[in-house]
């Protein structure tokens, strides 16, 4: 995939072409999965992998840096944050299911492939809570997703969602309080 394709699509999207998002999403998703897989094969057990590091690397690989504008980056990261949430939470859920007695056909399972149990429970709980928060305030849930899963700053989040920084800040502070309390209520998380 030549980098310019993604760059061009991002710019169309930034310029207001909503259909561009449908074209760019699978490209980003594919790259994130590929990168994650490569990292995971290469790095052994004493390494850790950060989701934001992945998102950054995907950005560098897919997008022509000389052409891209700052706003494109915000849009790119917005998509990536959502994807990383999906990839991580799916993995955590699958793993959790396996622990409960599936997995009879697993022939050789390396010990290193587990998310720490605590982390996978955290991720699942967070994902559930975000779904509930979205029912109360969809944008607030999105703000948390972008800041947490893609590591976006307040400024970048504002740019990606097309709202003011003050709004993002307010959404973040109160949404965070709500989530932390929910996670507390749903079980021992942190």
């Amino acid at each position, binding site marked *: 995939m030549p980098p310019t394709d993604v760059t061009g699509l991002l710019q169309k999207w930034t310029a207001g072409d909503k259909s561009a998002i449908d074209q760019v999403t699978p490209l980003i998703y594919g790259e994130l999965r590929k990168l994650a897989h490569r990292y995971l*094969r290469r790095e052994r057990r004493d390494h850790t992998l950060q989701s934001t590091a992945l998102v950054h690397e995907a950005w560098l690989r897919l997008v022509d840096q000389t052409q891209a504008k700052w706003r494109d980056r915000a849009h790119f990261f917005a998509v990536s944050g959502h994807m990383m949430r999906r990839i991580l939470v799916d993995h955590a859920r699958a793993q959790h299911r396996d622990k409960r007695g599936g997995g009879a056909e697993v022939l050789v399972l390396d010990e290193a492939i587990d998310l720490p149990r605590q982390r996978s429970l955290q991720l699942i709980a967070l994902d559930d809570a975000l779904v509930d928060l979205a029912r109360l305030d969809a944008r607030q849930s999105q703000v948390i997703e972008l800041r947490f899963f893609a590591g976006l700053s307040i400024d970048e989040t504002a740019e990606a969602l097309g709202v003011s920084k003050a709004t993002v800040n307010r959404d973040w502070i109160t949404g965070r309080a709500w989530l932390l*309390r929910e996670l507390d209520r749903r079980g021992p998380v942190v």
Partner: protein
Amino acid sequence: MGDRRPSEGLDAGQWGRIREILESALGLVPELRAAYLDEACAGDDGLRSEIESLIAASERSAFLDRAPLPSLTPTMTINASGAGRTIGHYRVVDRIGEGGMGTVYKAVDPRIGRTVALKVISHLGGSGDEKLRFFREAKAASALNHPNIVTIYEYDSDHEVDFIAMEYIKGMTLHAMLAEHRASLETLLEYAVQAGGAVAAAHAAGIVHRDLKAANIMVTDTGTVKVLDFGLAKQAGGDIEVTRTGATLGTPAYMSPEQVKGEPADSRSDIFSFGVILYEIACGRRPFHGIDLPSTLYAVVNEVPLAPDAVNPAVPRPLASVIERCLRKNKEERPQSMDSVRAELSKVFEQLGRGGQPSRGTPRRKIIAGAAFAAAALAAGIWLPRWHPQRTFTWTILAQQMRDGQPLGAEYVASPADTFHAGWRLRFRAQSPQPGFLYLIDRGPGAKGADQLWLLYPRQPALAAAPKVVTGWSVFDQSGTDRLWVLWSDHPIELLLNLLRDSPTGEVRDPASVRRILDYLTRLPPAAATSTQNGVQLRAAGDVLGASIELRHQ
């Protein structure tokens, strides 16, 4: 967890109102909040307690603030199942696992309609001759035609991809089985006897496994053990590294000291690794487990694990004894043949089965009682950790008022929920029926608000396991809230003891170390806490019991 809908009845409109007040309250310094809430909530107690709980939650945890969140351990497996692909003349049906040496697929040999497990070797280097030798060794083990050794059909390569076709086994690894805590000690011992027989047969034929571990032992649905990957360790890469001198490394937690040191591994190295598996079976945890690779390797070479029957009193002494001997650092001191190990195990197994009288108390009765309890618990749908005996310890805070650096009155037993005055001194008392190691870690506001940790206890690196500990005094001289972790471990925690090497005062400022320790602490499994006369009692099945509390000073 799932069926209690949080914030039941809360709708978007109500949340809008709550968040407006919440936002203003969070914008105020804590001292002004109460007055503001008095006014804003105007006597609506429900609203007020809702907001107060939100404020408390938002100040309690930093979970969401470490934005670049989940550090994943490697190998989040995301690739597709590979179904439909062909490797050699095999048609892949599904991907069934990822091991140190590569990916394992379930595949069909269409020529004879046989289902096979196809192991694709990712790191097999070397010339054609070396590869052939590698395969020959694997094949030789398989050719023993032992019922407990997995059969290898063929070795081939397809476009530079080397693979081994072997017997497809429907079952579960011992590793997965141990993680589930479901099988009884007797059952697990029976598997160990079978596995021991397989390894003994291979040794008799001059073949050393070199990477024995729980994940390399499969148990079929009918209870037959199959040992995998004989001889493969020698040349394949992945988890297993081949050093320049040709010595081999296995999987760290199961490696023998001589493997760690890069010396040649013979059959007695397998006996050591087998001892690690036996220890895991008996105690529910591994004998050597550092927090990272270097500390694990260090433990393998230098540390003597707690006796198996000290970790789990239900382990009969003869079993504990054979495990201890397998785990001797010096290979000359280990049992010299796998066959003798197997024989000892089957004797222990028979004694268990006959209700015989292994020394030390009446473990048989304990085991039966345990099994009956387990069965009852399973019937009741309770998830029951198996061999870990419940560990328990009780701790409490002793506090003493101070004025101008002088004690004022007698020390008293405080509740963790108390608020203390800055300058008072505190110490901690911990006791447990099992010996253990106490660790106290404090996280509080350091200079310039930097995140800082203190290891309050121990202050000397080598403190023996004791059933009761009273720490020295600590003075908390700043007002504010500290978070305190109290850990009771059945083994020394290297990560924490290392701190004392770098910082004799126990103070940790280096952000990377702070992060590493917090990461460790947040991963500890939760323990159940109850208040008793002697303090807070914690119970859990793990090897490290931990509690975290807030200590308030004003």
